[in-house]
């Protein structure tokens, strides 16, 4: 576990220097429902996400209304039609004031998943962005 920050920083540096944002298909973003935050995520291989294959997300959260840092960030994914979620817990590691790395994520079935990105602001209010992905 001690290696995680080093590992995460290396991944983050690699992604930034590789110019992921210019590579089509690697980057997605969504606004929280109230428009306060823009959540941008980069998917690490496999890309696109494959059913039952572990993957990682590199997430940036941009506050569009204030310059205060979010206090917390959480990720989850569920299959509403199946009424179940992931079988793994996503543990975000915050490596910058506005960026997190999540690894060991696994969407274990094909079908429609709803990914949720929960940003908690400095007042403790939760703001949610979500994205639907369909896995083959």
């Amino acid at each position, binding site marked *: 576990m001690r290696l995680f920050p080093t590992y995460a920083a290396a991944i983050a540096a690699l992604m930034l220097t590789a110019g992921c944002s210019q590579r089509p298909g690697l980057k997605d973003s969504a606004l929280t429902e109230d428009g306060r935050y823009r959540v941008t995520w980069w998917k690490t291989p496999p890309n696109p996400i494959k059913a039952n294959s572990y993957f990682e997300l590199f997430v940036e959260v941009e506050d569009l209304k204030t310059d205060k840092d979010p206090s917390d960030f959480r990720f989850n994914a569920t299959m509403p039609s199946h009424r179940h979620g992931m079988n793994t817990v996503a543990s975000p590691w915050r490596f910058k004031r506005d960026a997190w790395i999540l690894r060991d994520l*696994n969407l274990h079935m094909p079908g429609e998943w709803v990914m949720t990105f929960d940003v908690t602001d400095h007042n403790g209010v939760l703001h949610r962005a979500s994205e639907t992905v369909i896995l083959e």
Partner: protein
Amino acid sequence: MKHGLLALAACVAGHTHAVAGDAAARLEQSAVSASPLPPPPPNPTNRVADDPAAARLGHTLFFDPLLSANGKFSCTTCHDPARCFTDGKPVAEGLKIGTINTPTVLGAAHQRWLFHDGRADTLWSQALHPLEDDAEMGSARTDVIRYLAGNPDLATDYTAVFGSLPDLSDTDRFPRGARPGTPQWAGMSADDQKQVTKAFVNLGKAIEAYERLLEPGESPFDRWVTSIRRGQRDDTLMSEAALRGFTLFTGEVGCGRCHFGPMISDLEFHDLALPPREPSATPLPGRAAGYDILRGSEFRADGPWSDAPTSTRARRAAAARIGPEHWGSVRTPSLRNVARTAPYMHSGQFETLGDVLAFYNTLDLQVRRHHHAEAVLQPLNLTTEQLADLEAFLRSLSGKPSPQSLSQPPQSNGTAAPQSPE
């Protein structure tokens, strides 16, 4: 006008042809994603997982009934090589009648979780459970290690792989019948407990090394997929019914939602709302209990006895999540060799593949026990012929039997018997 109709007909024919081509391509794509079965993934939590000497020791231990409390039960009592490493019974029968159907060991090294409820996250830790389970072999780790030390062949093989066995000759320090939860164990010093447990864990690691050699074997389905991979699809390698069955399996019927990939399983947990085997039987909590047992176990992949507690494998196992939907859920079984592993489901609820398919076809027998249950299943509503096709496909997943050298006890000098032609 006539030319126009001909053009339209040609267009429709072309479209139909393209749709059929797309369907065939999708079918082949599903096929190649399910075969061949690659070698088992490495298990860094067991440094001897792929050590032939450890496998030889594990092979001997797997067949040895003297590891059990009464000297009558070995791993093969339930994992009988002649029955595809299962026992053919609805539920396991060791020292007591169990509650759970015996899963096959073939391909177990590919599993992410062991036992129907995932109470173990490595094959070596799985192997340790039955040794000390009162319903299975009922032994105790001090007795097992003392038995090994008293058997020159076993002791030599153990020492060659792991170094010296601990000296348990002082029965005051190392009482008989000592295992966690017993007064004998509680009376031992922490250091002595550690010595014994270390040797005990090594036995599990040796058994894993043997079990990693037990692969499901190439099936007619695998041979058919090989022909696709070579660009020379040969549909004579499977029966017509099996081919129709595979089309159903991967298509809208939806079996492939949980049964996919080379093990033809997502290796994860689902609640099918199966009825209990006996109406009076207590419903099993499945993964909900398995998760708690795993978290309380010292034999976890990220635990003190793991050879790589910070490895990716260990970290992923430690990230397991439990939720309300997991109550009653059990691991999706591999369908490789499924025709040889009757009876079926985690409590042996169904005797035949036909019974299993009949369950899925109507879901009439489902028993909902809580309102958080997942809702993956819908009735298949298939015809009798379609069900027969599905069963034919399932039967096409039966692989070649394991080599005889692995299906029999090793020769007394510790080496495996020569492999006979299959």
